[in-house]
């Protein structure tokens, strides 16, 4: 089966700024594909191009075999899009928000109304159908926006930061919906900088920074390749950090800074952590996670930005 999204050397420039600088990737039918990266990395721009909302400056981008620029309308007809923030209609009720959305996709009126009812139950807003959108909580708005995108049963659901700022209840509820629609064959494309979310949902990920892809793979592959099995997390004062980095480097160990911590990826950190404890330095030994991959691949630049 051909991939549902094919991006070849896609570039997006806004005047001086190059937001996306030549990305190539493919999203397979039925998988959950994640775009991971720091703020301003180009994730949102990439997802907007895939959704035929923003035309690429150059490169090739196909969704379901259709060119996003030439067949934008046809591409969007099979998508469900949930942008960052909230673009619900504040002038109409919860119910009407869903109904108008259904009409944009040409659903016949009785079918549209049936699906609106179904969606209201699903997103647990059946008792708020007459509410104005502004009267809803952040979690309710997000549930409504996701329910709205799923109402048309899209082949590809594209969500920008699905659970940003939500409480754990809403987050888990939304993750469950994603797993459910994926079982039903929907492809998911999401951006996130929440590592739990990426690990919990994504089959494959790309890590993006400065508009370029830094790494690609399953969460396990990425952790294995870029963060090893274990990491030591060391907290020392800023003036001693460089000294320790030099010491680790002498032993062939790479280390990187994450906030005030110094992180050392390794296969077995037992000996080193004992040595550090001897120095009176507290070292936390823990399994490597996706967060370590993220920090390692994108961290240095963030530190430079902050200087």
């Amino acid at each position, binding site marked *: 089966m051909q991939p549902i999204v094919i991006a070849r050397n896609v570039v997006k420039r*806004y005047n001086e700024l190059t937001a996306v600088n030549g990305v190539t990737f493919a999203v397979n039918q039925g998988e959950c594909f994640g775009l991971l990266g720091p703020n301003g990395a180009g994730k949102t721009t990439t997802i907007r191009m895939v*959704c035929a*909302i*923003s*035309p690429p400056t150059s490169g090739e981008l196909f969704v379901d*075999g*259709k060119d996003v620029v*030439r*067949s*934008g*309308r*046809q591409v*969007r*007809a099979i*998508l469900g*899009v949930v*942008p960052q*923030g*909230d*673009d*619900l*209609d*504040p*002038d*109409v009720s919860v119910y*009407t928000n869903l109904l*108008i*959305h259904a*009409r*944009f*996709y*040409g659903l016949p009126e009785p079918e549209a109304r049936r699906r609106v009812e179904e969606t209201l139950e699903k997103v647990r807003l059946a008792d708020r159908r007459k509410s104005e959108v502004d009267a809803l909580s952040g979690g309710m708005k997000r549930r409504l926006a996701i329910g709205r995108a799923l109402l048309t049963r899209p082949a590809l659901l594209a969500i920008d930061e699905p659970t940003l700022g939500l409480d754990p209840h809403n987050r888990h509820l939304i993750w469950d919906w994603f797993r459910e629609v994926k079982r039903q064959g929907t492809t998911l494309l999401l951006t996130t900088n929440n590592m739990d979310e990426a690990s919990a949902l994504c089959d494959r990920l790309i890590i993006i920074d400065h508009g370029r892809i830094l790494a690609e793979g399953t969460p396990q592959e990425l952790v294995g390749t870029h963060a090893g099995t274990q990491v030591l997390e060391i907290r020392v004062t800023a003036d001693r950090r460089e000294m320790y980095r030099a010491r680790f480097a002498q032993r062939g160990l790479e280390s990187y800074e994450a906030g005030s911590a110094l992180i050392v990826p390794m296969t077995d950190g037992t000996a080193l952590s004992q040595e550090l404890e001897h120095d009176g330095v507290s070292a936390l030994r823990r399994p490597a996670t996706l967060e370590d991959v993220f920090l390692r691949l994108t961290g240095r630049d963030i530190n430079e930005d902050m200087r």
Partner: protein
Amino acid sequence: MVQLQLQTTPSQATATNQWAWLPSLRLALVIWRRNWHVFLKNAFTDVTGLVMEPIITLGAIGFGLGQFVGQMQDGQSYVEYVAPGIAAGYAMFNALFDSAFGFYMRMSSQRVVAHMLETPVEVQDLALGEMLWSGTRGMIACTIILTFAAALGLVASPWAVLVTPAGFLVGLAFAGIGISASAAARSMNSVTLVFTLLATPMYFFSGVFFPITSLPGFAQPLVWALPLTPGTYLIRGLMRGDVGWEHLAAALWLAVFSTVFFFLTRWLLRRRLIK
């Protein structure tokens, strides 16, 4: 001009690409319906606002000032003369108000437009839907004033039933101006320029309150080019029953003006929204 796009299969999609600039009437009407729904929800406030101002104007200017004016050249009383002008003027104000302020809000802070463009809606559907809606607002305003004028015995002819579609045409022309202004505006403040620079001067110099033959010669072709003059001329003719080919020409001019502005609107919206 309008192509109905229903369900398109991929093979049709490639075939229709050369017509991709055409708006979908179906989607434009979904947008129209959304605005109609919001209008009905706020109908009391909206309609009160819609009705009060023109009625006050008609009373104060038509009956009040009219007593000092006496008769117009062709034997009409001043209030009979001014009533169709006010109908046209408020078709303009209503269409402009919605297409400038209302649409600007939907496009900027409310993000209603942003959501539409994530669905199969294209910029041209948006332009058409919003223009049809603002045209409808113009039509509603015009019809309410017509009804009121008829109740006061100021309508002389059954031709007046055509004031409703004429109001739609006036509304459509100004919708094009309003949406273009919104699309080009950098802030809500710059949208207000449409009123201070365009609508208010037009209201006073387009033959609403006095015949444009009183204007200096060089100004007359200029005011005919702007849509309120043909609009007022058309509606006045219809209310009086004094209708000729010139009135058809006025209607056609409004239609041409609206079509040109549809394309300008589409271009400006594209420039602003597709980034």
